[in-house]
Every structure is written in structure tokens, then in C-alpha cells.
């Protein structure tokens, strides 16, 4: 083996064994990497270290839900200084893990055999993507988490292999996942952007800095929102079919995008208090012209005397009248989205620099984040997607 290859093998002991492109030159054209049949898949679960056992979480059971929530809220994704940590609420998890076609078999936990404490988790939900015109029925893998005390023991690879096995047994052989870390091999990297709604609090907790020689008074004024343009109303059951059509049409412009059924839109987009917020604008004939949605993902704040959480609204899916060709309309829709998030008491609106978001980021005073989200596909080669061609937003 050549020394360079050997070095790479050592560097990703796990990912080098998986059906993912090992580097960018691996990807000449799109397509499945490993062709498998359900009959090829082994029936027995992967072995865990003794003392640990697999446990299928019942997310509709309050105790299980609280246990997973506790694991994530204490051990999930943090910023580089470990001050902010994602704090998905239990209700959020219940919603996020049960879109149409969900399976308890894919809500996979690891427990300590002796005390039944949940110390690791990984999940999958079904989804349909369109990737450079090909349709993929796959799973979105999310909420991978290993308790801080059990890190670096190669538990994550076992979780990934076991969920893959369970998914494969249903005849699905592809997955999409995102991470802050760089693994083999991203199909796209999108930057985070942040739009302060409560600029003073964001400075107080160190989420942003008051620029030198700038007064707090002018900083607050800068981010004031006053005029709204569209008469956005909370989305309702009766809007589901029109929203589905509008959203799919908007998304179909991008090389890489999710494709929604009405059932999925009903589950993912209808408002749920403190979880997901969605709105529509209608014309005089009561037809939906615009759609916008965001979800609530607070971050807990370590060691701050005054504040315990940043209340962040993450921009989810949207579709403006004109599908982005009318840039003013897109900006108006997003301006009004910010106002609604402010009214719902969020401190900041976060989004990624993907799809058409560049049309409004500067004008609406979004600032650059220091985080980047990497998108990956499992068992599928896909030529690089530029951020502005990305139409998938994961929770």
C-alpha cells in the first residue's frame, strides 16, 4: 500500500470501511456505491461492549422521551468553547422523530445494562430526495449522541453500523446526514448565518460582540424591525395541499432537494406550539401565494449569571410567490418571517447560506456565523453541490 493511502486509512479507521467516497476524486459521476439485497443483511444486531444493551426508545412514552432529552441536553452538539449546547425540547424530539413512515426500530438507544440509563442514541426517519434529477428514497440520520463519559471508545461506529443494518433490512440502502465535522466526503458545505432579534442579550451572553465604538443604543436600533409587507397567517390544515404543491415547485429548482408528500407536509409544517411555526400568505381568491416556516431550537448557556438559554428560531422551509425570481418578494417574505419570530420572543433567527438565501441575507442584516454544516450521503456518490443548489434542511 502506498504511504499516502495508508495514512488516510489510519486517519478514518471507520469511515474508510464504509460505502462513502473516500475523497473528492472518487466522485466522477452520481450513483450507488455498493449494491446490496435485503437477503445480504445479517439478522443479528451488532455486539455492544458487555455492560451495554440496545434499547428501542418509545418516543411517545414520557419517561423514554425525558431520558433521551436528558442525554441530548447534557451531551449533544456544543460550540467550540462549550458555552452553548443545543437543547432540543422533548416535544420537538417527539415531532421530529415521527414523520409519516417512521419506525421505532430506527429510534435506537444504548443503555447501561445494570441501571438502564440511556447513554447513546441515533435515529433515522424516512425521506425522499431528488439528487441531480435522480429520486432517492432514503433515511435522514440525526441526533447521534454518545454520553461525554463514553467518548472516543468507538461506540459511534457501532451505532452507525447498527442503524444501517436496521434500515437495510427494510430495503433502504442510502442515507443523508449532516455534521459540523469534516468526514469522508462532504457533498456540500454551507455556512451558518444569524439575524439578531434581541441584540443586547446576544452580546450579554457572548453570542455576538458589540463592535468597538458602537453604542448599544445604535446596535439595538440597527436591528429594529417595523414594516411588514405580507399578511402572513398561521398555516392551517386546509392549506396543506396548496403548500405541498408550492413548496415542491420551489424546491425543484435546486440540484439537491427534499420532495414532500401531503402527509409529510401535514406533519412537518403545520404549527405546533413552541416547536414549529409556519405561516401562509393568500391572495383574494384564498389561494396560498407564499409559505414560510421556522422551528424552535434553543441553546443552553453555561455559566451565565443572567441568562440560561438563547431562544433561536431556525429557518426551515419557505416558498415565496415568484419562486425566487421576484427577489423583492422573497425579501419581504423573510422580513415578515423575522417579525413573526420576534413576536414569538426568539432572540435570533439562524439559517444556512443555501438555496436562495443569499437574496436576503445582507439586506436583512444577517451576520456570518463561525459554523459550517457539512452534508453527506451514505452509499451514494454525488457530485459536489454548491450551497445555492442545496434544497434540504434537516432538523
Amino acid at each position, binding site marked *: 500500500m502506498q504511504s499516502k493511502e495508508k495514512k488516510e486509512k489510519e486517519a478514518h479507521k471507520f469511515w474508510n470501511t464504509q460505502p462513502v467516497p473516500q475523497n473528492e476524486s472518487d466522485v466522477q459521476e452520481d450513483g450507488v456505491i455498493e449494491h446490496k439485497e435485503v437477503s445480504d443483511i445479517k439478522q443479528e444486531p451488532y455486539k455492544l461492549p458487555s455492560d451495554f444493551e440496545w434499547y428501542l426508545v418509545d418516543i411517545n412514552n414520557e419517561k423514554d422521551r425525558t431520558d433521551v432529552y436528558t442525554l441530548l441536553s447534557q451531551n449533544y452538539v456544543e460550540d467550540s468553547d462549550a458555552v452553548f449546547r443545543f437543547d432540543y425540547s422533548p416535544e420537538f424530539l417527539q415531532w421530529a422523530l415521527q414523520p409519516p413512515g417512521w419506525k421505532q426500530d430506527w429510534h435506537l438507544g444504548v443503555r447501561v445494562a445494570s441501571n438502564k440509563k440511556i447513554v447513546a442514541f441515533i435515529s433515522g426517519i424516512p425521506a425522499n430526495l431528488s439528487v441531480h434529477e435522480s429520486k432517492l428514497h432514503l433515511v435522514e440520520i440525526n441526533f447521534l449522541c454518545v454520553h461525554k463519559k463514553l467518548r472516543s471508545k468507538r461506540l459511534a461506529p457501532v451505532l452507525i453500523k447498527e442503524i444501517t443494518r436496521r434500515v437495510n433490512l427494510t430495503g433502504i440502502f442510502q442515507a443523508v446526514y449532516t455534521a459540523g465535522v469534516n468526514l469522508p466526503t462532504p457533498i456540500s458545505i454551507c455556512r451558518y448565518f444569524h439575524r439578531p432579534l434581541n441584540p443586547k442579550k446576544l452580546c450579554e451572553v457572548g453570542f455576538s460582540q458589540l463592535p468597538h465604538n458602537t453604542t*448599544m443604543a445604535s446596535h439595538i436600533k440597527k436591528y429594529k424591525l417595523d414594516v411588514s409587507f405580507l399578511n402572513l397567517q398561521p398555516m392551517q390544515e386546509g392549506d396543506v395541499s396548496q403548500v405541498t404543491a408550492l413548496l415542491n415547485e420551489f424546491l425543484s429548482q435546486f440540484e439537491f432537494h427534499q420532495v414532500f408528500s401531503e402527509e409529510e407536509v401535514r406533519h412537518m409544517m403545520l404549527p405546533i406550539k413552541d416547536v414549529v411555526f409556519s405561516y401562509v400568505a393568500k391572495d383574494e381568491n384564498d389561494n396560498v401565494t407564499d409559505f414560510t416556516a421556522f422551528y424552535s431550537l434553543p441553546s443552553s448557556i453555561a455559566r451565565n449569571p443572567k441568562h440560561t438559554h438563547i431562544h433561536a428560531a431556525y429557518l426551515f422551509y419557505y416558498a415565496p410567490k415568484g419562486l425566487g425570481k421576484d427577489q423583492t418578494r422573497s425579501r419581504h417574505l423573510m422580513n415578515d418571517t423575522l417579525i413573526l419570530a420576534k413576536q414569538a420572543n426568539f432572540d435570533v433567527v439562524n439559517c444556512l447560506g443555501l438555496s436562495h438565501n443569499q437574496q436576503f441575507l445582507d439586506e436583512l442584516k444577517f451576520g456570518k456565523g463561525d459554523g459550517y454544516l457539512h452534508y453527506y450521503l451514505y452509499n451514494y456518490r454525488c457530485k459536489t453541490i454548491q450551497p445555492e443548489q442545496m434544497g434540504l434542511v434537516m432538523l
Partner: protein
Amino acid sequence: MQFYGLYKTAIIGKCNTPQPGYFEFRERAKWDAWNKIDLTKEQAQQAYIDLFNTVLAGQNQGEIAQGDEKLEGVKVSVMTSEHTTPAASTIFDFIQNGDIAKVKELLPCNSVDANGMTPLMWAADGGRLEIMKLIDADLDAQDFDGNTALHYALLSENRECAEYLISKGARQDIINSDNETALSLK
């Protein structure tokens, strides 16, 4: 290796460690890559993404330094500051930073900054009640925008500072260039 250098700079900033010994080839090559990058953290972050995008677009394939090191990305994203902050040097800087000792050294002080702001206004704006209590000055002075210290306390949502100024007898009817009085802001 170009990737590595940009990545390190993007995550940590300019090269800040000593050069590894001559025979530590791998470490040395990595250090050289990092040291070569003369960019700020912010510039390097953009350059990393740009390079990534061009590499993945099919050019520059020889440049990829995959798996050189486990490169941890930032996870919960926070806002990058687009401005660099020079070291504090004026009383206004020290007030903004809440550096009470330095402020004490420089008081009393009758100067105003480039916008006509007094130390009391900066203290009111920054919610520095302790510093306000050290300052003995005209409560109703206005800056070039017509703002008084009380305007600043209210605009920056510092209730306590506003109450303090009012208790000291600050006027509430002065109009600033946005046509706001303290009364209208309360």
C-alpha cells in the same frame, strides 16, 4: 496541505505555535502549511470554503490533504465579529469595557468623543451604573444626535441607569434628532 493551513487558520487563527523540529516531517509540513497562511481567521474561513468549492468542482485535485488530522469543526455556530477591536485606550473604551480602575484614574473628564458623547452617556449606554455614580457632570448634556445620557439609558434598555438619572433630576423632555424624548421612550 493548503486545505490544512486554511483550516487551522480558520479555526484557531494565525499560526501561533513554534516550528516543529526538522525531523518531524509530518508535523513540520503541517506547520509550514499553517504558517504560510497570512489571513485573519475570518478571511481563512471564507478561503477554506472557496477552496473546498473549487476543489470539489474538479480542479486542484492534487491539493487535497485528507485526513491529515482529525479536524474538529465548530458546531453550535455563533456570530463572527466583522470588526477587529483595537486595544482600549480612551476613557470611552474603558467605560465600554467596564474597567472601573482605569476609569477612576481618568476622572474627572470633560472631554467628549467624536460624536459628542460624554463619559456619562457611554456609561448609561453600557449599563455601567457603578461608573455613572463616579461621574459628576451635566446630566442633560446632548451629543450631536441630540441624545442625553437618559436617552442612552432608555434606548439601550438599562432600566436601573435610567431610574438613577431620573432620581438625580435628569430632564425627560429633551428631544433628540429622531424626535424622541425620554418620556416617549419609557
